[in-house]
């Protein structure tokens, strides 16, 4: 059902860009008998759009025929009573008998099968899908109707082989998208995004500590600037074969986004209004225990104040191993402030609070309004769209606002046509949630550490009149400044309202160009694509906070321009067709970073400026980064009948980032497609409507980041007037070579039983060679990393999409789509010197090891006796191995999804189930939450009262230098240990305790829509769609921590460091068409 929309856009697209030219094959058949008419006419689609290039033939006379011109007009000579056949890709064939010489205008009806679908391929060249020798999958803009802040998170489950790991949340955090697994070990693995021909920058703005999960705030990557309301459709070119022409950045596939253009050719102004509101709730938080309060020991301290004895809490403790929550009257932290007379020295019961941490979260609300005007005439098209989005986040004081304007237009002439497209986006956010070991992260404040009895309603009065914070985690009970000081954990409301991040990004991207068509078979296109943004953020830690107060100003000024030239010729002789392209591109990119922060604390409270400190630190990333790539490329596509297609491409790049004598790299691709159902043998089969095999091979080269070749020194802060430089941690390499990914793929596409069942299967095998890797070395080498060309990574896998369309009636339509993908990844070779590459070593070790798959979690395992029982040590808790063991790969075994679309008259109903099977993750929240007695299991089953005897054996263990061990003399363990000893063993004992299976099945989306068609009204139609995202975790293997999380869009995955879980979202959209 989305093709409708899709094709319209494609049509315009073709007309506007004039990339398809037609050779008129008209053969004037001289009259033999009867009247000969010259019939003229106009061919359009149902929406009135001109259809250029429609084939018009005279039935029974294969030699005759013509094509409609660019405006959909045609002229043909026929005899009376002959039948004209109008055929056009993607439309049903139409026949008309010629009765008179009156003009015959034809409206072609769109074909509902996807056999003849047109997809956009490299360099924005539209091609029939059946001609392609590689896997391409399309989704329409309708798939984005749930309008997530980060448009790409809506792709999850809709494309086979595409994995989206989304941090969730309405504030537009990271979304990591990978196609066909991981090709580059330490480089970028995300696909290239092309929006209307503009390559869009997708820099991960996060710091490395955010990426490693140790601390930070997820500001996301810049692709979230794409406005879902302007997207007409998305084409996913999955492998290098599809993307070879795009060059270096396309080795991981390409996501081609086409924005909406003006639609119908009626000369009237089309107006569309979309408005939506969305609610978001934080769910799937780890479960906290409710039986024991804060403290390190189970008894209260007693103090005498003004002659009266009170029970006081161990306020300074940020753990929950304290006394049982039995209602004993105690002085809570808020009973110690004389300013609050009602509460002061007024003991209250020691109980689990009415308002626990879940009260901290509020319902996030976002509303999105979009209005679009478009107008088309026969020679020009114009569209303006404006979108405003306001988000109130789920944590206090968090908000985001976005305004997006999209303007596109074109005019066409006989010789020269112009087109242009400009997008302006402004993104502003305040108080983005924090991740990891940051004092400002609520997950750390309440799920990793903290006291469970703390009442959040009480906490919300977070500040005294003098500006100091009221902290539950105060240093001690006395009524003095020192005692009132926050010990470890700031009041979360203080963090939210006083110590927050503000961001602003202004972005402008678009293109402008012209097309010259000197002859019918040739077009020359010149265009300039630009992407410019300015990102600023200001971070602050307020005076009186637990950590030293601080103010930081970060800015990034980015611009990328691509100057592109493309010559296209399009010819057809009888059964043969040939499209040839020759192009050149020059890309230049500048990035200027400035990152400055105060040092030594702020001087004046509540004043945020770099001036408000005794000194500032200029962080080392500050500076200018330039890069340029020159490219030339060409492609040839040959087609024979509608049966056999052969494509070849070749591209050469020159990159500024590589050594001058080695900066040129050439890479070809060759693909073919064979529609075997066109063979006579298959022609009469009823069950097989369509069948095609495809085979492709491609190479794509890649370069690296600027300034990776020569040795440089890094500045440190001057010491007492002495300038101070050091060698960097990374050894650069003047002999770098470009890296090459080569790929084979083979596919089969079948349509069975008159398109009842469709199957598309692809097998691929990618090898990446000469990878430019930042190889972690033994620090004893002097450098911690060395840049090398090494490694061979293999990815092979299967992607399959099964589409079933069992009901296709006027009132009823039901389509079900199942996607499946399995990717297996193997590191074949790293380097001669080392076979293990360390990806992260902050919270847990994550490595890529020769002979294994990428992303192995390494850590201390349990020690197992020969009978498979775990060995406990003399303290009665589990022993850990002496050396690291592999604890599993973070990569999934396979992904599957199941999508359903049901239509009954004007009702639509759809749902999407999305699942990941296999793969592991490490959870820091679990690890710390156990240590501190926060998580539910630390107080379950009477463990705190009775302790626990661990299931295992005692024994003599001898560890050998090679990491092996022997266990002898085993006996069943009978030592009872305290809950605390047991929980803390999970923190400092075997790492395997904190590694979980990431398998899940989730109900990802639910949509219900109804369209009111109001033909007599000013408003032509009103569409109402209600939807929900991430509604239900049907199954998760890990019970304590939601498995679906990410810290970044980077390569370090499978590490949970304290993230907000994916929220549940409910929304309703109203669309008006005028």
């Amino acid at each position: 059902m989305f093709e409708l929309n899709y094709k319209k856009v494609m049509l315009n697209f073709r007309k506007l860009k004039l990339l398809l030219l037609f050779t008129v094959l008209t053969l004037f058949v001289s009259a033999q008998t009867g009247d000969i008419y010259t019939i003229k006419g106009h061919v359009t689609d149902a929406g009135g759009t001109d259809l250029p290039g429609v084939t018009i033939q005279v039935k029974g006379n294969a030699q005759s025929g013509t094509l409609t011109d660019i405006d959909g007009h045609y002229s043909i000579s026929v005899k009376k009573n002959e039948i004209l056949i109008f055929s056009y890709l993607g439309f049903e064939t139409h026949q008309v008998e010629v009765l008179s010489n009156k003009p015959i205008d034809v409206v072609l009806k769109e074909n509902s099968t996807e056999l003849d679908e047109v997809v956009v391929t490299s360099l924005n060249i539209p091609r029939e899908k059946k001609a392609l020798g590689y896997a391409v999958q399309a989704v329409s803009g309708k798939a984005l109707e749930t309008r997530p802040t980060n448009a790409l998170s809506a792709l999850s489950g809709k494309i086979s082989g595409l994995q989206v790991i989304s941090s969730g949340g309405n504030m537009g955090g990271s979304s990591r998208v990978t196609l066909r697994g991981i090709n580059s070990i330490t480089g970028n693995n995300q696909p290239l995004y092309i929006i209307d021909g503009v390559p869009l920058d997708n820099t991960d703005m996060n710091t490395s500590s955010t990426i490693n999960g140790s601390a930070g705030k997820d500001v996301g990557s810049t692709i979230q600037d794409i406005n879902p309301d302007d997207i007409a459709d998305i084409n996913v070119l999955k492998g290098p074969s599809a993307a070879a022409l795009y060059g270096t950045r396309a080795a991981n596939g390409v996501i081609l986004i086409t924005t909406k253009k003006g639609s119908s050719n009626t000369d009237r102004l089309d107006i569309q209004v979309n408005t939506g509101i969305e609610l978001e709730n934080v769910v799937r938080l780890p479960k906290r225990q409710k039986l024991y309060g804060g403290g390190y020991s189970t008894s209260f301290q007693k103090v005498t104040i003004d002659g009266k004895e009170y029970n006081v809490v161990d306020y300074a403790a940020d753990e929950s191993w304290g006394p049982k929550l039995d209602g004993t009257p105690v002085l809570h932290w808020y009973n110690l402030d004389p300013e609050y007379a009602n509460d002061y020295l007024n003991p209250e019961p020691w109980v689990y609070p009415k308002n626990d941490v879940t009260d901290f979260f509020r319902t996030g609300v976002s509303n999105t309004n979009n209005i679009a005007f478009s107008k088309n005439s026969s020679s020009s098209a114009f569209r303006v769209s404006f979108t405003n989005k306001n988000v109130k986040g789920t944590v206090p004081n968090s908000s985001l606002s976005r305004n997006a304007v999209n303007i596109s237009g074109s005019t066409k002439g006989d010789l020269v046509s112009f087109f242009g497209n400009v997008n302006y986006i402004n993104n502003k956010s305040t108080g983005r949630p924090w991740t990891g070991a940051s004092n400002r992260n609520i997950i750390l404040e309440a799920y990793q550490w903290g006291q469970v009895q703390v009442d959040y309603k009480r906490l919300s009065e977070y500040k005294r009149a003098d500006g100091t914070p009221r902290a539950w985690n105060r240093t001690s009970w006395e009524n003095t400044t020192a005692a009132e000081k926050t010990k470890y954990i700031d009041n979360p409301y203080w963090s939210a309202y006083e110590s927050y991040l503000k961001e602003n990004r202004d972005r402008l991207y678009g293109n402008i160009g012209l097309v010259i068509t000197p002859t019918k078979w040739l077009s020359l296109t010149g265009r300039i694509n630009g992407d410019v943004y300015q990102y600023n953020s200001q971070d602050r830690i307020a005076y009186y906070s637990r950590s030293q107060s601080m103010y930081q100003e970060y800015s990034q000024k980015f611009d990328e321009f691509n100057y592109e030239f493309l010559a296209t010729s399009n010819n057809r002789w009888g059964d043969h067709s040939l499209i040839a392209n020759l192009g050149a591109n020059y890309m230049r990119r500048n990035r200027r970073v400035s990152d400055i922060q105060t040092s030594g604390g702020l001087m004046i409270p509540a004043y945020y400026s770099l001036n408000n400190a005794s000194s500032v630190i200029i962080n080392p990333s500050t500076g200018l980064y330039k890069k340029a790539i020159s490219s030339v490329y060409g492609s040839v596509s040959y087609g024979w009948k509608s049966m056999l297609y052969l494509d070849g491409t070749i591209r050469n790049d020159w990159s500024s980032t590589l050594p001058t004598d080695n900066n040129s790299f050439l890479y070809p691709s060759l693909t073919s497609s064979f529609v075997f159902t066109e063979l006579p043998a298959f022609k009469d089969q009823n069950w097989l409507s369509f069948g095609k095999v495809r085979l492709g091979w491609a190479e794509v080269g890649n370069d690296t980041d600027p300034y990776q070749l020569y040795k440089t020194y890094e500045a440190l802060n001057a010491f007492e007037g002495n300038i101070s430089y050091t060698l960097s941690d990374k050894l650069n390499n003047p002999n770098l070579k470009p890296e090459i990914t080569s790929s084979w793929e083979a596919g089969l596409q079948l349509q069975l039983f008159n398109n009842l069942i469709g199957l598309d299967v692809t097998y691929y095998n990618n090898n990446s060679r000469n990878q430019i890797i930042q190889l972690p070395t033994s620090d004893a080498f002097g450098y911690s990393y060395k840049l090398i060309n090494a490694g061979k990574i293999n990815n092979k896998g299967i992607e399959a999409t099964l589409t079933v369309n069992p009901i296709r009636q006027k009132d009823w339509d039901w389509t079900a789509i199942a996607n499946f993908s399995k990717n297996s990844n193997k590191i074949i070779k790293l380097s001669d010197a080392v076979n293990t590459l360390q990806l992260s070593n902050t919270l847990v070790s994550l490595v890529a090891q020769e002979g294994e798959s990428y992303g192995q979690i390494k850590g201390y395992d349990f020690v197992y006796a020969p009978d498979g029982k775990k060995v406990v040590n003399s303290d009665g808790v589990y022993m850990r191995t002496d050396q690291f063991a592999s604890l599993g790969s973070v990569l999934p075994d396979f992904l599957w999804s199941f999508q359903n679309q049901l239509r009954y008259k004007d009702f639509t109903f759809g749902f999407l189930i999305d699942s990941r099977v296999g793969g592991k993750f490490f959870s820091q929240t679990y690890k710390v939450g156990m240590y501190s007695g926060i998580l539910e299991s630390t107080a379950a089953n009477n463990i705190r009262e009775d302790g626990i005897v661990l299931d295992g054996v005692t024994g003599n263990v001898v560890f050998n230098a090679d990491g092996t061990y022997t266990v002898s003399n085993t006996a069943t363990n009978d030592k009872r240990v305290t809950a605390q000893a047991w929980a803390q063993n999970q923190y400092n004992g075997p790492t395997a305790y904190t590694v979980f299976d990431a398998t899940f099945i989730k109900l990802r989306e639910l949509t219900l829509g109804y369209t009111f068609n109001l033909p007599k009204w000013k408003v032509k139609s009103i569409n109402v769609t209600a939807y929900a995202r991430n509604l239900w975790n049907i199954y998760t293997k890990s019970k304590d921590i939601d498995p679906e999380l990410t810290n970044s869009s980077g390569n370090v995955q499978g590490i949970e460091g304290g993230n907000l879980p994916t929220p549940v979202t409910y929304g309703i959209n109203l669309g008006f068409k005028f």
Partner: protein
Amino acid sequence: MKINKLYILGLFASVLLSSCVDDINEDPNRPTSVPTTSLITSAEKLLIDNLRSEQASLRGSMLFVQYFSQNTYTTQSRYDIPFSYSDDYWKGLYKTLNNLEEVVKLNTDPLTKDVATANGAGRNATQIAISRILKSYAFYALTDVFGNIPYQSYGNKDEDFQALQQNPENITPKYASQEKIYADILNELKAAGDTLIKYQSETTFGKADIIYAGSNQKWVKFANSLRLRFSTRIKDKNQALYQEHFQDALSKGVFTSNADNAAFKYSATSPNEAPLYRATVTANRKDFAISNIFVDLLQGKNAILPVSDPRLPIYALPATATNTYVGLPYGLANDQAGKFAATGVSLPGAVINAANYAEVLMEYAEVKFLVSEYNSWSQADYASGVRASLEKWGVSADNVNTYLESLPAASKENVLTQKYIALYMQGLESWSEYRRTGYPSFLVKEGDVVFQGTIDGAGVTYRFDPLFGDGGVPGRLYYPTKEQNVNKANYQEALSAQGNDKIETKLWVFKK
């Protein structure tokens, strides 16, 4: 003909296109050459930053020898040492070494050696010599913590010495034995001192040398004094080497007063403040109290040294609640430590907690104690050592004399106990000497009572219960986990040479 034209056109295009991308890959943000003085400033700072880091020192050796006691998150005082401590310490010191090696290279390479001497940076030879002394110090800081380590020597191309090998590259260096490392450090220090002594009146690096402001003469004394330290360490293993280096060093000149002390004075300006200041004031924490073991000793409550020590008010602050000196029982569990408020115990003294505290690499007092040991625990050297320490800390002359009068006579235990008191804040050397000698003899071990008294109306007895190790003071730290990931074969070879990667494994130099 046509082909030729195309070829020429192609060639032309290729030249044009590649020239479009040339010359923009030069990093405008970072210099490709810097003066050696700027490297020596950063290397000295890196060395001390790592040596005295919160992790390795304040949460490591300062606890192991029970100067400090943690009053919260007490797990490190109970020997649960996070792996990241090793990773960071190891990485930081090898980075220091790489920068020092860079100074050596810039003074050796014919293309750069002349430039390296410009602007009063001093001779190539003396720059190299000072770098060798600092490198020796960094390697000592590594080997005493881990045992066998990758090592590199300026003067000895032993094939076991594979660290910092960049030409040809070796990214998986093997671990050298401690025996070889100690012998080579002694030779390196001797060679460096012998070079510097020739140019005693000159200066090197000028004020960029934070430790000695460029005085070659002081560097000579430092090198020779360090030879006393390291040769003493191996005296039971190689008496001949001990004698040879000790005598030679003494004859060439060692520290003769506190003015010779090697110390790195931090800055009062952020972000260059001293590590303890950053861990307490900047980080706004009070994790480190002075341990009861140490306070009791300084108060004269320990039978071994029943004299009250005038250094106590310098080493520690009185507890704010009582204005008396109260040591925090060493090695309590979290719930036990929670009973002792930070206001009720002594925290580090103002001098040592100052932003511009001068961290000591070696001082005159230690030299005197080493000489006393060399002279069979001679009384005079012992007394001079104690005096030197008291004077260094600014104790008044009267108090110095009073203390010296009541000092018990020199003996192995008394000398080493005094050395222990003098080495306060030099956690690593104090821990090393404890492992070598077993003194001070009163550090608590597993099962010892660390507190007995009444808390919240109930009588309690707290015993020391370490979480890892064999119950005694750790013998070493774990190797960095990164080594297991990237240098596994050599890591495992080191384990087979020296023992399991556990904290209780005894290192060669400390084995009896």
